[in-house]
């Protein structure tokens, strides 16, 4: 699909579907233009692993995370769906950069906290319900080949909900989640990827064809 932004790329030659101008993406995110270009190298690698069409498909995302394109994982599904802003079943380059920007060390903490809430709000009701929390605990246990009794799992889930659910409506809303994270900041530690500040070192090949010096 030829996007509107394709016209900026004419002087660089053919670009695949879904490419967006790094200057625009840099202006809308904490990334520099060089960093966006380095992200494009990463994006090219991820998006060509199974179907070489310039788009990240679910299988390619699963392959990138687990080195197994068929690995089903509840949390990877949630992140894929949130990255796929247009909900067209694939992650385009612009969606990739904008979504990853929340994970940048310089991104506002509030954005990271809200993104985490959206991950855990499995059915997007605006609340993290007890059943959803239980489903996530079960997913983690399954992923780790661990078994705990139903009673133990219920106890863990109940204890957490009780701690976070300050208005006692049986579920966690966004404000309660923010307060809970304020008391337990390590809960969003995987919402920051320090690598993103060093992306130009990880993918240095861009240096040879960078459009901009920043």
């Amino acid at each position, binding site marked *: 699909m030829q996007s509107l932004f394709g016209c900026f790329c004419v002087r660089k030659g053919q670009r695949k579907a879904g490419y967006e101008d790094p200057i625009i993406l840099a202006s809308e995110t904490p990334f520099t233009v060089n960093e966006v270009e380095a992200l494009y190298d*990463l994006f090219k690698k*991820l998006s060509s692993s199974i179907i070489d069409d310039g788009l990240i498909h679910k299988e390619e995302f699963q392959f*990138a*995370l*687990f*080195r*197994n394109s068929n690995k089903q*994982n*509840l*949390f*990877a*599904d*949630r*992140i894929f769906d949130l990255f796929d802003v247009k909900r067209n079943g694939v992650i385009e380059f612009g969606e990739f950069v904008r979504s*990853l920007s929340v*994970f940048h060390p310089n991104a506002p903490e509030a954005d990271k906290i809200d993104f985490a809430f959206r*991950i*855990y709000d499995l059915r997007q009701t605006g609340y993290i319900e*007890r*059943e959803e*929390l*239980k489903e*996530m*605990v*079960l*997913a*983690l246990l399954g*992923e*780790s080949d*661990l*078994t*705990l*009794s*139903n*009673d*133990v799992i*219920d*106890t*863990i*889930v*109940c*204890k*957490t*909900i*009780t*701690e976070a659910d300050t208005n006692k409506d*049986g579920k966690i809303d966004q404000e309660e989640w923010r307060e*809970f994270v304020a008391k*337990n900041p*390590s*809960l969003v*530690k*995987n919402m920051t*990827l320090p*690598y993103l500040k060093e*992306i130009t070192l*990880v993918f240095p090949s861009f240096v040879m064809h960078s459009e901009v010096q920043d």
Partner: protein
Amino acid sequence: MNAFEMITLSQGLNLSSLFDRQQDFIKRQTRFVSRKSAKVIISSIEAVAGSMGLKVHTRNFKTRLEGLSANKAGQFAAVIEVYEVAPSLFLVDVRKAAGDTLDYHKFYRSFCKKLEHIIWKPTESNAKHGLLRTKSCDS
């Protein structure tokens, strides 16, 4: 440890894998459950690691193991954290900190064999309860 802390251990929530250049992949995170006391868990881990020739350093329920790789050519390190998940129930999370992934998995297999006496493997009878039923929190 609350439920969300447990969930953040998931590999599906760890996007740093996207940047990995390694082609080989086996599970990078490994964990087990124990019903022994935290003190017994840590001292058992330290004893087993010592017997495997590794240097041990523990602080606050976090233990770092260091040594040479199997072929003596590189570093090997693992980090172990013990979390209380429920009364008398601990989750022990083991992570590779440095070295070859294959070395790490050989280490983990051997490590767990020597720790069989503290690892809890639920049997059908003590683990089974209807997974469909979620009990109410007010009971």
